[in-house]
């Protein structure tokens, strides 16, 4: 293995010490009555218990949620105040759609690397069950006008504008504001562009479920997860998934503008709406050593990219395709220099489109400005402990699920053969963004 980034020198690298998440639950199921704050607090308290952090004053806790009520403006702070951590631990909320908790990991890791803090928790939480519901824009305008009125007559005049149709609330939808298309519809277009087959998507799906089931069976999550509200495993997991079974499902997303292309995306090879929370404990090596705590892996580098999916001709979820080569370049690495690849499976087609783009000389030349394509890699190293298609995908919690999974895989490898290892993380996000990272053990 070549050593990453001889040219880049940070003061130090942040260590990934450990993690805790609650099992992920399909929407309107086991966690239907749990709020973001409930789930985040539970995940934090499980982490506190695992590492004996009761009363600890950590450098910071960074978290966030995509679907968040306005009353949860200080979500992370409220969760920490309700947890067993010291109240003196500062917090902030961050939101970058599905990239949220890889971005919070990056923030905490960077502060540790710069010596600004010695320890911190990166996390994310989302509920699609206990989602915020807003009054619709017309009703909001009427109510605000009434609020502004200075006299009773003025109030009554404003309220006279009330109409029955204004009762219909605004429920958050998985829809891009600038295109009006759902994420699935965007992904279906990208799949059609790259000619991604139904079978290839279903293979990714079956592997995700089988790998996750095997990871549970070998106790992989025993020190990464704490049960919550009666759930001990992600309840989206279908350990007995087969290609034959998946082949029977009807497609749900059709690629607009591709009338001759068969629809390939089903409820199985797309992630379901999910509730859950995940946390990662990061620290300096010194902080971990003082407490005799393990170091699973180190955070090496990260890159965030965005693409113009509105006016340009790039797919909504293709930003990682641009982020990864920039990060590899900076670290003097190739796509093949990794022992594990952790790609967030928003849709099976998304990661297949990304792989296809990296193997395509024209895309790599025209879009990435490379003389050679990035090429392919050994897919037996992909999502070996399962990923979002099997676990589910509470938007803001996914990064904090993936980081510890990869860190533990790398730690196991280095324990096993003593030679260390390197892993790549890639997460696509709504709004045409993407966050990618490198970990090493």
């Amino acid at each position, binding site marked *: 293995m070549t050593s990453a980034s001889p040219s880049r020198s940070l003061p130090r690298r942040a260590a990934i010490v450990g993690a805790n998440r609650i099992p992920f639950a399909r929407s309107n199921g086991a966690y239907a009555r749990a709020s973001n704050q409930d789930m985040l607090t*539970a995940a934090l*308290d*499980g982490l*506190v*218990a*695992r*590492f*004996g952090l*009761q*009363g600890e004053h950590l450098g910071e806790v960074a978290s966030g949620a995509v679907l968040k009520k306005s009353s949860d403006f200080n979500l992370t702070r409220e969760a920490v105040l309700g947890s*067993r951590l010291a109240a003196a631990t500062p917090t902030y909320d961050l939101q970058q759609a599905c990239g949220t908790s890889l971005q919070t990991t990056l923030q905490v890791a960077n502060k540790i690397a710069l010596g600004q803090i010695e320890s911190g928790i990166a996390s994310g939480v989302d509920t699609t069950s206990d989602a915020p519901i807003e009054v619709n824009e017309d009703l909001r305008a009427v109510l605000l006008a009434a609020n502004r009125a200075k006299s009773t007559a003025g109030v009554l005049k404003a309220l006279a504008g009330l109409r029955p149709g204004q009762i219909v609330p605004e429920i958050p939808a998985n829809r891009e504001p600038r295109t009006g298309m759902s994420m699935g519809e965007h992904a279906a277009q990208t799949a059609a562009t790259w000619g991604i087959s139904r079978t290839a998507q279903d293979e990714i799906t079956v592997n995700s479920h089988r790998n996750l089931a095997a990871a549970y069976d070998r*106790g992989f*999550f*025993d*020190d990464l*997860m*704490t*049960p*919550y509200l009666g759930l*001990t495993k992600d309840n989206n997991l279908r350990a007995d998934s087969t290609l034959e079974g998946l082949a029977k499902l009807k497609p749900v997303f059709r690629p607009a503008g591709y009338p001759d292309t068969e629809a390939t995306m089903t409820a199985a090879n797309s992630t379901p709406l999910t509730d859950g929370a995940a946390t990662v404990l990061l620290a300096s090596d010194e902080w971990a050593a003082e*407490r*005799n*705590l393990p170091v699973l892996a180190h955070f090496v580098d990260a890159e965030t990219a965005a693409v113009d999916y509105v006016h340009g001709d790039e797919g909504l979820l293709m930003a990682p395709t641009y982020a990864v080569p920039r990060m590899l370049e900076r670290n003097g690495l190739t796509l093949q220099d990794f022992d594990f690849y952790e790609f967030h499976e928003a849709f099976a087609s998304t990661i297949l489109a990304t792989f296809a783009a990296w193997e395509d000389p024209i895309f790599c030349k025209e879009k990435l400005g490379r003389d050679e394509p990035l090429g392919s890699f050994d897919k037996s190293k992909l999502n070996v402990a399962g990923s979002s298609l099997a676990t589910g995908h509470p938007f803001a919690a996914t990064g904090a699920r993936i980081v510890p999974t990869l860190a533990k895989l790398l730690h196991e490898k280095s324990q096993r053969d003593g030679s260390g290892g390197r892993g790549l993380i890639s997460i696509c996000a709504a709004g045409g963004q993407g966050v990618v990272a490198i970990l090493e053990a």
Partner: protein
Amino acid sequence: MSNDWYSDFVNSGFGKTIAGQVGLPPVPKLRRYEPGQPLLSGPALLGTATADGRVAKVVRSFLTDLGVEVHDDPNAAVGGGSSSSKVAAGIVDATGLSSPADLAEVQAFLTPVMRRIGPSGRILVIGDVPAEAEAPAVRAARRALEGLVRSAGKEARYGATVNLVHVANGAENDLESTLRFFLSSRSAFVHGQRLDVGTVPGFSGSSQGVDWDKPLAGRVALVTGAARGIGATVAATLRRDGATVICVDVPAAGDALARTANDIGGSALQLDITADHAPATILDHAQRHGGLDVVVHNAGITRDKLLANQDRDRWNSVIDVNLNSQLAINDALLSSEVFHRGGRIVTVSSMAGIAGNRGQTSYGASKAGVIGMVDATAPLLVEKDATINAVAPGFIETAMTKAMPVGTREAGRRLSSMTQGGLPVDVAETIAWFAQGASYAVNGQVLRVDGQNFLGA
């Protein structure tokens, strides 16, 4: 009407009146330990059966150092009162018996004590180890004490306990933690029992400089099955006594486990103790805390079935969790530096392992097996100055016993000298005492915490 005519009768209005008039056994409220509580709540009587008694002197100086009012004459006026005033304890040094004739001296001392012992009082008989005597008359006299104590236990009332401690020859100065346990309210539900001190040769240790309010200060303890029930109480009790506690339970119980750990400032380790990697994982985790001093094998399961309906998987799951896991972990502890010199292993057996229980062949086998494990492991630990002991709970009030049928539950409670079930803390106090560094001379023992339950007594 059911077939239980007695129950129907005593639960009818008329029957209730009659039951009150004939005096069904009362249920005494037991004095239980709180930090800072004095050893005894009043004066003590200290008798000596023979001129050869080895321990009276040690006991006397122990009690007077603590400021306890001590009288030799069992008929003495105490506490500014009269010769019939209540006493908190009656202790008799019954070492040095040369024949059954000497037992009359023990009787002469205990007869007034039985009349004078106060609520939750402590009667303690201290004798020689029968097996150390070769002459039949001597061994008979020593052994007779056990029958005396077990019978007196059935006569004691108002939460008073009667227990017997055998002291090996030469161990008379190694009694302090044992005296503190049996005389204090930490032993509230230990009644009619026998314990041997110093019987495994080669022990070493000291109770010098012990902070008796925090006897586990600076020690790291691990408790399996700590998510809830008795295990959670054990963890909290070890913490109260000063230990840092690693709480272990199966991953599926992780949320309750996290609460236990967070409540006591410990750490939570989600682990299937029957997994091959479990011993290594425990040692690995313990290094975060600088090693292990105390391991409490509390985790246990029941998969009750009549033997006629038993099957292999069900049987093996009980033996694996309750017995094999403990053997594997002990092997790892014995061969690792992570388990410190002076360490303590405490395991949980059961009344079912001593007396047997219908439907519990697998559970009873596993819990009797635990006793065999303690017997064989005790001498192996001597070279590490370590010990292993077992507690055998009787009927303890837990979520499990709450779910029992009423009849079974009532029988469990009432068919004991104390006419009540014990509390999880009674088991925990006994475990915490075994876990003390100062309990170095107590090794290879099985102590029932059962209020002298009549099953297998």
